[in-house]
């Protein structure tokens, strides 16, 4: 009881204190720092309590508010508190003097409260209550940052409220089917449910979570929503907020419904529920990733990738094998680490230069080497190249898909990875490489409080890449606790009958290769550093007034190839739905003409219709 209630009460206390001290940024800042540090500590020491169940003696609809700590919860709780702490450390300086920062920490606490509640809840109703709190605070988070943020947050809200309503239907439908909200009870009675009903119920839940985790056809709220708000919020949102949807999917697919039940839901032949889900996941990987290629705003580019990376997690889960599920879960952690790292680097650049427009930046590696390194680690992770963590989880997923016999899902993953490599190179190139514009000559590296989270995350990204076993231990336990086969892991990789992975060897050989190259490099004469204007330009003279850079429309040729296939179906559909709603409401509004004679006709009509219908009924 103590730790769970302490976690939740502390976050609430944080909300309260921040509301009280909304005028003093300094007080807010240190209160938040301290409380989040305690929260992180508490969630770490929660480990011995795994398996225990707590109830707050308070009834909702005949139901206590129940919490339970499982390995899955523990995993997510660690991620939430950890990343929030890093975000707060980074924000200490970042949000200083920004407009609308008075409620910065308040909404952060509220959001954390909602997320912790969602992941710790042990029954559907508690889950739903905290889910709503979470959605509204996400909305509040997205709304900070001016008029565009308001608009995009509104779009999110439309999706989120739809998701909550669908979830509500699911929650109550399962209550009326099973007579209980409790996950364990529902899981126990699941076998007695007829297959169509199971499918229907599962579809309801998965749809709702898919909206929250931005799966392909319902992803369009995310990029704008995440990129228009404060950049630190972009990090926080893409790092962990979206992944609560993934938590829901993991919980319901494996915890509540159970993989055996899900596997029974066949459609035609080999195509079953998981496969259909996998197709959506595959589209989530491909479409947003290639949309990211077109972006020229760093935040928006990463936001699109945030959508795309969700597809990897889902496709891992959809593969249904121990390796794939482990990969999906591991990817949540990995993605959180590197995407937050990337966005922190972007935020550092924004902090110093005031822009995230990729067409206006360049050459900052000379001025901000630490941010560059952070971004480099991040993008290597995001692109899924060894030796960073992103590779390991992606490797699990590819392998699970190939050996599970899903070649087209596997190729979707590969296509997504290639698209990612392309666009992250554009990101790092346009920000840090190329020519340094003259106006950024005085730019400095960011201070310690902003560097510290980046260094920590760099260590995490590299550490988990070389020693995936650090996280795999917990993930294997999660798998066992969900009744799945555990993945055969070792400290630095996977032990399997055919085709193992040993990241330590890979990294060591890589470092050895670099060492050998370094020796060869030293054999030559000393190198000499030259400035950026000492450059080949076909004999032309370069100076600061000559823009000699290539970053506008970086992948024009590929865009030419893709353009014919980019029909923007989703945008058009959404606009269609919006205009249909508008039209319907306009017509319905016109029912109320304002003229009393039509109203009289309505009454008479109603009278007649009532007679006709009631005559049949009685």
């Amino acid at each position, binding site marked *: 009881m103590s730790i769970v209630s302490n976690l939740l009460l502390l976050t609430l206390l944080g909300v309260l204190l921040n509301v009280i001290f909304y005028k003093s940024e300094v007080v807010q800042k240190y209160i938040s720092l301290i409380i989040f540090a305690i929260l992180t500590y508490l969630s770490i020491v929660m480990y011995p309590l795994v398996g225990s169940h707590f109830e707050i003696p308070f009834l909702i609809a005949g139901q206590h508010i129940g919490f339970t700590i499982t390995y899955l919860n523990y995993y997510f709780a660690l991620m939430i508190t950890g990343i929030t702490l890093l975000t707060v450390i980074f924000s200490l300086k970042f949000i200083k003097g920004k407009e609308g920062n008075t409620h910065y920490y308040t909404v952060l606490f509220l959001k954390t409260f909602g997320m912790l509640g969602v992941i710790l809840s042990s029954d559907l109703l508690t889950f739903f209550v905290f889910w709503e709190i979470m959605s509204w605070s996400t909305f509040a988070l997205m709304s900070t940052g001016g008029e565009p943020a308001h608009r995009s947050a509104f779009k999110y809200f439309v999706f989120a409220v739809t998701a909550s309503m669908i979830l509500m239907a699911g929650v109550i439908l399962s209550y009326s089917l099973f007579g209980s909200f409790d996950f364990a009870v529902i899981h126990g009675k699941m076998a007695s449910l007829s297959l169509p009903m199971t499918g229907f119920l599962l579809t309801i839940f998965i749809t709702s979570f898919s909206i929250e985790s931005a799966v392909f056809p319902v992803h369009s709220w995310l990029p704008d929503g995440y990129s228009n708000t404060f950049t630190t919020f972009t990090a926080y949102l893409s790092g962990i907020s979206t992944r609560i949807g993934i938590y829901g999917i993991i919980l319901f697919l494996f915890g509540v419904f159970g993989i055996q039940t899900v596997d029974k839901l066949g459609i035609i032949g080999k195509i079953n529920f998981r496969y259909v889900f996998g197709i959506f996941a595959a589209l989530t990987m491909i479409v947003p990733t290639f949309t990211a290629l077109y972006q020229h705003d760093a935040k928006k580019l990463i936001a699109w990738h945030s959508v795309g990376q969700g597809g990897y997690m889902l496709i891992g889960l959809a593969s249904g094998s121990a390796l794939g599920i482990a990969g999906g879960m591991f990817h949540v952690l990995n993605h959180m680490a590197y995407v937050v790292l990337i966005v922190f680097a972007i935020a550092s650049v924004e902090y110093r230069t005031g822009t995230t427009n990729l067409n206006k930046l360049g050459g900052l590696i000379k001025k901000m080497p630490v941010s560059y390194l952070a971004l480099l680690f991040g993008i290597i992770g995001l692109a899924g190249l060894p030796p960073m963590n992103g590779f390991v989880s992606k490797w699990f997923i590819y392998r699970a898909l190939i050996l599970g016999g899903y070649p087209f899902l596997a190729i979707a993953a590969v296509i997504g990875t290639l698209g990612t490599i392309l666009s992250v190179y554009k990101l790092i190139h346009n920000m840090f490489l190329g020519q340094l514009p003259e106006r950024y000559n005085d730019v400095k590296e960011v201070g310690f409080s902003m560097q510290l989270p980046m260094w920590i995350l760099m260590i995490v990204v590299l550490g988990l890449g070389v020693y995936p076993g650090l996280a795999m231990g917990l993930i294997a336990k999660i798998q066992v606790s969900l009744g799945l086969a555990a993945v055969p892991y070792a400290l630095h990789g996977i032990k399997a009958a055919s085709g193992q992975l040993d990241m330590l060897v890979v990294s060591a050989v890589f470092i050895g290769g670099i060492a050998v190259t370094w020796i060869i490099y030293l054999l030559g004469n000393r190198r000499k550093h*030259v400035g950026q204007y*000492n450059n080949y330009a076909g*004999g032309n*003279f370069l100076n600061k007034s000559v823009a000699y850079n290539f970053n506008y429309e970086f992948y024009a040729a590929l865009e030419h190839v893709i353009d014919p296939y980019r029909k923007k179906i989703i945008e058009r559909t959404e606009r269609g739905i919006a205009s249909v709603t508008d039209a319907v409401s306009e017509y319905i509004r016109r029912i109320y003409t304002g003229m009393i004679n039509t109203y009289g006709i309505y009454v008479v009509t109603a009278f007649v219709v009532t007679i006709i219908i009631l005559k049949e009924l009685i």
Partner: protein
Amino acid sequence: MDEKITQRSVWEKISAKLSKRSLWMLHYCTGCGAIELPPTMTARFDMERFGINPMVTPRQADILLITGYLSVKTLKRVVLTYEQMQAPKYVVGFGSCTINGGMYWNSYSTMKSLDRYIPVETYIAGCMPRPEAIIASFNELINKIDRGEANSWKDYYNNYNFYKENQEHTFEGPIETYNDIKADAALFNIK
């Protein structure tokens, strides 16, 4: 000169023997002489036999082949390109124009002698020289490298004041190439 040759170590001799077989050429084609280069490269004369390949950027090239006359405007580019090349580097003056102005000797706008501005390793006389002459000149260059005599590039560092003065006189002021010749001189242990 002779002293330096005798001072060469065994390593330097081996190095010269190997390096002479690979000469990459940046051709600066401002004049009519460039028309002679395609036959030099293709089947009939095939300069790749000697490991001579055309290259496109000064960073990669060993030979700067100046074909034809140079005006003030193009000379600036030549100087810039020359400074961007990586030592050791060899300038080959192609045709009479680079030697004495050739048929443009009394033009008000062309440079009469290339070696007043950058050190030239070999000249190819003629208006215009045939591919045979080009190949012969390259062979001469190869032999010079082998003997350790192709050191004209050091002159640019040794006598930088001379070249700079001539350049500034012609250009009516300094040009900014972002190359610190003085510092480079120290890099090569010259002065």
